[in-house]
């Protein structure tokens, strides 16, 4: 790509709207205004951030949900122009003195769940957006032709520009935007881009890519807001890229109330990471792939569409393999100052398939979820195939979790005889066929062939396979790993009732960022009663939600441990780190808070999001149902693979002697027991959360949380019966 090519692209732009604004300074973590862009009207406006927004919604996901709530009605569809994409960081976002403080939160109405989705992502966009003058970017409407929205935080100018010549795929447009908007090499690090790709134009499982410029590699790098199809919404609005530029000093631009206070806790945790990461999770050398071996050892790694929890070939895709492929010695954080530095990349990878075959590229990742979802769950244990899938998912703008879990579902349907080569266009979609999985991915990129059907996601596929191919609806309901329309992320939950709840009760659908309780429950046996599980399903989702209000990554909370953590009363909560975050919030905003206040901040947003689901026609108990594959063995093969465990449980928990019973009889008895357990768990959790038995926050709960706005109460009263 030459300078001449970039100039030609820029000259082809037609400026559709221009908005000049006064540059300001961030005050104690807030820019105090949000940017509204409407692509139907070519309107651009500034909206104030009120004290009420800060008090009730804090920032990040909270601001996003509040803005989206007012932008849409209960009838808004994902591809209506009135749907919005809202991107926001949070008051702590942009801090460089504490690790993991650069996250953005994105919300929209999802193409697969048809309700509100939230997704968190690294990269520089959120912090640079704030430093450019905006606590959130709110995009509504739909352009006539492809556009770029450019926010120039140096000049105080926002433009909507028709952009016909640029690429759509992320690895190309990411570089094009850097070359186009940076005047010098030095300025490249001041640019961040949000983009999707050609896959997001055809599939409902589109993701967003958020960039940062890697000064050592001299290349754009990418993190993903993967869940819920927001990339599909981006391309539906005909947005090729959102670009922000900010060239000021970034180390101090968040203007905290008390810089010394945050430096103190930052110094402590940075020292902890320096001293202990190498003997704990090794995030700096390996990153999240360290989890693959552990999940396999504990029988929690999804294998063959979550049928099993381990596989003899898992050793081909464990952390030690990736450590050798990742370039080492390059500190690799997705925001400045992050010492956890868990982003990793494979440099110099030569693509073997697809439209970019033969190109040498950087592959960002893979992360654990991609390895498990596109790897073990599909029976694929070839690292090169996973690199290929990872790269193309990213550049096409497709969520690797939804791609992997959807492909695993299709593979099981193929092996069960629901699909055949005639239906799949010749693809032999057996578990382990990496070439077929890659071809599906390229078909999604082109919007052609059977891949275009797989790109609709599992919920839609179950319907299609029943109506058009005679698939057994009950069988597909049992094995289709989706809930609320969102594909499951990559942990086997059959033996952890608490984690079944963690997935089933999550507002957006089965994404583990709300709760990850498998070890506390299944391995440590720390949650023996329903009340214990309900308490954990209150605390941990609230705690983990808090990161998304503030612009924080949760990995520095618990992927590193102080040496004396074991001596504390509740080591699973990492109390010293919780106190760090109390200090961080108080130090940035100037508001003195306690750790209980942080939970209250989350409770407000969490319950508001539950009511938002209700507004969109969901949000009640029936929508918290989960597929039986996430609860227990669906097939005889699954039961017999762990027969000793299940027979013992039948005896001890159900009071049934397995002797003389057929496997089918035993499975039916176990199923009845486990499904009842899930219902009892939901009862306990709803009670703990202040919800009705049908899962609706009560008016009293809304009032206690100060979210009893008239239109919120109206939605609840209409549904509460």
């Amino acid at each position, binding site marked *: 790509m030459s300078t001449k090519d970039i100039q030609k692209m820029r000259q082809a732009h037609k400026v559709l709207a221009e908005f000049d604004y006064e540059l300001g300074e961030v005050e104690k973590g807030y820019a105090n205004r949000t940017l509204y862009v409407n692509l139907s009207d070519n309107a651009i406006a500034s909206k104030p951030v009120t004290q009420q927004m800060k008090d009730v919604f804090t920032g990040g996901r909270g601001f996003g949900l509040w803005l989206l709530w007012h932008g849409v009605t209960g009838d808004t569809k994902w591809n209506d122009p009135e749907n919005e994409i809202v991107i926001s960081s949070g008051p702590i976002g942009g801090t460089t003195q504490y690790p993991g403080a650069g996250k953005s939160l994105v919300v929209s109405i999802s193409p697969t769940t048809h309700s509100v989705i939230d997704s968190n992502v690294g990269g520089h966009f959120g912090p640079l957006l704030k430093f450019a003058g905006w606590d959130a970017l709110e995009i509504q409407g739909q352009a006539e032709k492809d556009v770029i929205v450019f926010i120039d935080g140096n000049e105080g100018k926002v433009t909507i520009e028709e952009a016909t010549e640029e690429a759509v795929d992320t690895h190309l447009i990411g570089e094009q935007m850097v070359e186009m908007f940076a005047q010098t090499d030095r300025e490249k690090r001041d640019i961040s881009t949000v983009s999707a790709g050609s896959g997001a134009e055809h599939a409902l499982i589109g993701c967003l890519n958020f960039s940062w410029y890697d000064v050592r590699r001299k290349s754009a790098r990418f993190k993903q807001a993967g869940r819920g199809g927001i990339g599909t919404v981006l391309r539906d609005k005909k947005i090729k890229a959102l670009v922000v530029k900010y060239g000021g000093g970034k180390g101090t631009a968040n203007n905290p109330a008390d810089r010394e206070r945050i430096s103190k806790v930052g110094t402590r945790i940075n020292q902890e990471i320096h001293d202990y990461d190498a*003997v704990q999770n*090794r995030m700096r050398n390996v990153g999240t792939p360290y989890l693959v071996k552990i999940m396999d050892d504990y029988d929690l790694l999804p294998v063959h569409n979550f049928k099993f929890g381990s596989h003899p070939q898992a050793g081909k895709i464990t952390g030690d393999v990736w450590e050798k492929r990742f370039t080492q010695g390059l500190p690799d954080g997705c925001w400045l100052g992050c010492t956890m530095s868990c982003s990793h990349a494979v440099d110099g990878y030569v693509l073997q398939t697809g439209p970019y075959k033969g190109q040498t590229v950087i592959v960002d990742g893979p992360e654990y979820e991609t390895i498990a979802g596109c790897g073990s769950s599909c029976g694929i244990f070839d690292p090169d195939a996973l690199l290929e899938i990872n790269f193309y998912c990213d550049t096409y703008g497709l969520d690797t979790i939804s791609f992997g879990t959807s492909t695993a579902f299709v593979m099981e349907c193929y092996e069960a005889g629901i699909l055949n080569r005639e239906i799949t266009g010749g693809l032999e979609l057996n578990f382990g066929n990496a070439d077929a999985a890659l071809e599906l991915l390229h078909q999604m990129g082109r919007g052609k062939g059977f891949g275009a059907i797989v790109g609709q996601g599992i919920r839609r596929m179950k319907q299609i396979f029943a109506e058009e191919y005679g698939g057994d609806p009950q069988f597909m309901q049992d094995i289709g790993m989706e809930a609320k329309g969102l594909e499951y992320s990559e*942990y086997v939950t059959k033996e952890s009732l608490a984690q079944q709840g963690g997935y089933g009760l999550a507002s957006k659908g089965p994404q583990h*960022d709300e709760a*990850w309780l498998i*070890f506390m429950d299944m391995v*440590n046996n720390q949650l023996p009663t329903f009340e214990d599980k309900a308490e954990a399903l209150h605390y941990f989702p609230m705690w983990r939600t808090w990161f998304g209000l503030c612009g924080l990554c949760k990995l520095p909370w*618990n992927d590193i441990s102080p040496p004396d953590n*074991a001596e504390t009363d509740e080591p*699973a909560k990492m109390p010293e780190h919780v106190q760090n975050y109390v200090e961080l919030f108080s130090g940035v905003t100037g508001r003195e808070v306690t750790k209980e206040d942080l939970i209250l901040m989350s409770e407000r947003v969490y319950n508001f999001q539950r009511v938002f689901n209700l507004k969109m026609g969901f949000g009640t108990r029936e929508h918290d149902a989960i597929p039986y594959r996430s609860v227990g063995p669906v097939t005889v093969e699954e039961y017999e693979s762990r027969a000793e465990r299940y027979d013992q449980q039948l005896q001890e928990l159900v009071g049934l002697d397995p002797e003389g019973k057929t496997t089918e009889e035993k499975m039916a008895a176990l199923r009845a027991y486990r499904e009842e357990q899930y219902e009892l768990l939901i009862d306990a959790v709803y009670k703990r959360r202040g919800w009705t038995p049908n899962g609706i926050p009560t008016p009293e709960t809304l009032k206690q949380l100060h979210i009893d706005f008239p239109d919120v109460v109206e939605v609840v009263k209409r549904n509460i019966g």
Partner: protein
Amino acid sequence: MAVDSLLKTIKFTFPMIVVSVNGKVVPRSEFGTTTIEDNDEVKVLHLVAGG
């Protein structure tokens, strides 16, 4: 059997693991030298991470 042998035997490979024997936390550096005797009460806590 030493603590680290026990963990290896039951495939408790999680790196952030806390072990106590008879109520006393065993430092990681002593996993290889701390012996578990018959009837000892051993507790193993995995510090939740993941995801």
